[in-house]
């Protein structure tokens, strides 16, 4: 009742309204719990003594407080270098990709561009058909970017899907009349793009940056294929390594001591690594989140 009176034009809540509200909050609450619990569990596990994690004593809060696992993480050079590589790939890759996406999307959103249909068709073609793994590898080899940081950044430098969203965003938020008005005032195409389009496109820029950054942050396959130098590996590849090294064929356990050793290592590192790998996206997300819905929705709905 108190809630109902607080609203400016109090409308008597009916019984069924209240039931709906209760159901809503219960459902949402359960959903939140389902999402939150794994996060809390991982955090607690990373701060607990690994022995307690293995034996299942940790279920919500840390048991046997210990930050050893975080210390151990930083003992591994490859984890530290993997982290900085991942940051580099995410930041560098997303900036480059966003710039390219804007450059590709804006002209395609304008009416007057000759050959627009053909260019667009070519872009869309690549969404459905790809050369495949080995031809891509050959291209990377011939470009001389194999086993360099470029091999991670360049092939992922434009996602057609993002480009289409961005194009639609431009079409719907920057009307042709605005271009004409600017032209009447003597503004060039570049000037218009720089002074008018970009300031009006913050949401879509943020969306692009986030999409690209998250994609780079999570990716490991291109690094697996293109890189043969440990110092260039991103964090995800190192994470994968830790999980893999612990997978033994149980019937072929030649070295039981080795097995136990790897198990301990994995239990020790697994959770703290997940925490470390999750922190950067979690930190960035709140800042872009407000643009997120706006940008993506505007871009996708009004085709």
């Amino acid at each position: 009742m108190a809630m109902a009176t607080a609203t400016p034009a109090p409308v008597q809540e009916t019984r069924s309204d209240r039931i709906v509200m209760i159901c809503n909050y219960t459902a949402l609450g359960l959903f939140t719990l389902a999402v939150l619990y794994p996060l809390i569990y991982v955090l607690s596990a990373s701060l607990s003594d690994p022995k307690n994690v293995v034996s299942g004593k940790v279920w919500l809060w840390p048991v046997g407080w210990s930050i050893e696992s975080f210390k151990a993480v930083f003992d591994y050079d490859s984890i530290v270098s993997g982290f900085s590589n991942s940051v580099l790939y995410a930041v560098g890759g997303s900036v480059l990709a966003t710039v390219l996406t804007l450059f590709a999307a804006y002209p395609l959103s304008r009416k007057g561009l000759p050959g627009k249909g053909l260019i667009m068709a070519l872009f869309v073609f690549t969404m459905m058909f790809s050369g495949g793994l080995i031809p891509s590898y050959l291209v990377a080899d011939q470009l001389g970017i194999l086993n360099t940081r470029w091999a991670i950044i360049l092939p992922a430098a434009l996602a057609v899907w993002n480009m289409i969203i961005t194009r639609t965003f431009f079409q719907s938020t920057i009307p042709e009349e605005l271009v004409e008005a600017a032209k009447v005032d003597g503004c060039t195409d570049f000037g218009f793009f720089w002074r008018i389009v970009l300031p009006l496109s913050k949401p879509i820029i943020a969306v692009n940056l986030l999409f690209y950054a998250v994609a780079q942050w999570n990716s490991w396959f291109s690094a697996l294929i293109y890189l043969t130098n440990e110092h260039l590996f991103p964090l995800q590849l190192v994470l994968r390594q830790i999980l893999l090294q612990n997978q033994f064929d149980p019937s072929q356990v030649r070295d039981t001591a080795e097995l136990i050793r790897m198990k301990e290592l994995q239990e020790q590192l697994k959770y703290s690594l997940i925490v470390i790998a999750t922190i950067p996206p979690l930190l960035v997300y709140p800042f872009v989140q407000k643009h997120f819905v706006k940008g993506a929705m505007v871009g996708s709905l009004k085709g």
Partner: protein
Amino acid sequence: MRKVKRRTFVAGAVGVAAAGGSGVLSGCGPGTAEAGAAPESLTQPPAELGPLKSGVNYPPGYIGPKARRQQTIVTEPVTFTVVVPQSLTVGDWATNEFTRWMEQQTGIRIQWRQVAGKGNDPETMTKVNAMMAAGDIPDAFLGITFTRSQLYLYGAQNLFVDLNPYLERYAPNLQEAMKDYPEAPKLIKSPDDGVYSFPDFNDCYHCRASGGRALINTDWVRKVGLAVPTTTEEFREVLTAFKKADLGGRGRTIPFGGYKDAPLDTFFMNSFLYNPSYSLNGGDRPWLVVTDGKVEANFVKDEWREGLKYLHGLYADGLLAKDIFTATEDQIKRYGDNPDGPVMGGARVYYWGTFMTLDLDDPKARWRQYETMTPLKGPNGVQIAPWNYLSVGVEVSTLVVTRKCKRPDLLVRWADFQMDLEAILRSYAGPDFRWSAKGDKGINGKQSVFGMESWNTDETKGKTWDQYAVMYRSGDFRLAERVNPKKPTFESPLYEETRDHLFPYKQPMERQFPPVTLEADQAALDAEIGLNLKSEVTTSMARFVTGRLDPNDDAQWNDFTDRVQSIGLTPYLEIQQAAYETYQG
């Protein structure tokens, strides 16, 4: 695997088109390769064994690697490019301590290229196949596990070097090892007699019997006043007694447990017929046996059906864990580690650590209550512990030399160098190993040769090659590891129980289906039918045991045999028979 392979073929063709005349190797037959062994690689003087080092105590009758004084291989530094798996234990291959030692000892420098992965996972192979197809090939691969069929495929294409002539002249340590393991020459050979990889020996005694291992709680056996069972009927009585006495308390007793990665049939079926060990995840071909030179499949035999009936009965009486086919290792460990006393009477596991945390300090620790059972004697007197003579011990694909390599002789000598006892210990345990004093006991109770202070990762990190090196770990070598008398591990009991409870019941070697090599087209068919059969037989077995199907019902049993026939059992057996005959030569 098949998918990758098909890609490789397509890519091979694309590779030719794209590479044009630029000399990129694409694996399309001889003549396209830009490189090949230099003629001088076969005219170098043969390598010889060095004199034995003193101060090492070998037990009497010891068969295995020995520490010798070895010569440097080259005086002028030579560099090879070698692709290796990434490993957290090795760290940076270039700055690794064993790498430095090898460089210093042999004079051979290695330019490492790391591939993410473990060397035997599908993703590593995807990467390696991409490299091969694109002609981006190193001098050698170390620790990348090509299957026998892949080695043969690439070898026949002249992409991998046939090491036969080099092994004869430049691998004295390997020659010694092959004398100790007479089956080795057959196991490393391809159908065209080529040897396309430098092999590795890891003769793990307890692994040879791993499929037939089941543990039973001897404390409980004593408590219910019975003896450790040796026949199927006694086993049933013991489990029934466990259940009745409810020694786990509050109805939590699990008379006999297991988990999904340890097949039940490798233990139980051996009371009815010989049924070999296999791994569910690996490339093994399970349930195949050789009878008088003929390859047969176990799962359509009447004895198999009798075994299913027995298991069906145990399950129906609640003597097997409900989740015996589905439990994960974590789940079974939770039963094993149950805080207020054991709840499990016995389990089909590979060793104690599979189902409980091992306390090595406490002499009364729970794991010590459990003992390896002898195989159970079935109603017709069958009592076999499946012994893996052939796929444990000799391993192929440890070092693969490619056609890019100008001096295969040097890489072969480099690999052979690693088979020396001291090199093995350094690459595997790090520089902190110790030679044992006279009188120190090893795992098998004889004179020990070496000891390792620590397996602790923090201390060996960056110092070893994490088992990726070429090694000659013979049975005697492995068992000559010193046991700390103050802190004995599970290694000795594991060895002793294997020796006393399983080894005496092993089947003759001729009955084991060997690891065979297939031609490319057969390999594809083999993989496809093999996968379907594996899935059908495993699922049906679970159904027959848990009562969703009844093995006593003729119609249901016939349905099952019809299904495996329609999957292609006959062509499958024909492929295996042909491959077996090729293997036998």
